[in-house]
């Protein structure tokens, strides 16, 4: 498995080559879409981080996480 599910997101470092996303633990809403973005992140949400975009996309599907969509706005 080449991704991590991080529930204590306290100054987690990501690089330009890491794929990551975040979702809320309660209602499984995607709050940060799957992206590559370097930095240090702290959050009360859950981060999924890894080097394989497809694996994280599969994780999103397998765990019924609500996908992020710009057009899903009423």
């Amino acid at each position, binding site marked *: 498995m080449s991704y991590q599910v991080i529930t204590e997101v306290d100054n987690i470092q990501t690089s330009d080559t890491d794929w990551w996303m975040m979702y809320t633990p*309660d209602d499984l*809403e995607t709050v*940060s879409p799957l992206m590559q*973005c*370097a930095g*240090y*992140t*702290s959050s*009360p949400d859950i981060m999924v981080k890894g080097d394989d975009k497809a694996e994280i996309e599969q994780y999103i599907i397998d765990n019924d996480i609500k996908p992020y969509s710009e057009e899903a*706005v009423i």
Partner: protein
Amino acid sequence: MATVININPEDGPSAVTKIDCGTSSPKLSGTIDVSAFENLEDLTCDGNDISEITGFYDNPNIKIVLAATNNLTGPIPDLTSMTSLERYWVMNNEHTGSFPNINGLSELGLINVGNNNLTGTLPADLQSLGVPNLFRYNVYANSFTGAISDCTGMTKLQFVLADGNDLTDFTGGVEPSLYRFMANGNNLTETAVDNILQAFVDANRTTNMGSAVINLGGSGNAPPSAAGIASRSTLIGRGWSVTTN
């Protein structure tokens, strides 16, 4: 060979208030002219290969334009004659030129011009544009330069997605309504990063923090100064998700 589709409703074109192009295989391409439909309120034609849509930019009855993910090119026309406009989606096209004129569109709640080839600067401040109902301001993945718009006074604004541009500066403020601010992947200076973090501290949002996100990371943006790091810590303590370099 091009096919021309004419719509001739039984009750006449003035009876048409909604056009939904749907999806087809092969996708629709070419030009769509909707000028005959003077009472058109909703134009939906996303996810096709349309290169031009004409005949609606001067229609005051239009409320919704969903034309994302096509092959639209050239500048985005002046939107101000669509005085009823509420939603305008043209992301994932090939538009060039500058941010469109949205002055005085008092009903406008959402504009998404993301992932085009737009250049130039963003409006200096949103409040002076007269768009008090704006709740999503999405300008990501273009080549905008200069400052991120001042969001002071925009009490309904919830989303600012400005990531993936060449933006460098920010002065001004934000309101507590704003809970999703993405400016990663720009060229923000240390001062700009500090100013953004301080603006959110000053806005003092403390409720409904479950999906409150500020992302100032990504290559190009400067890390915050010591003062910015203190602001960052304050925001994290309030429940924000924060990413910085």
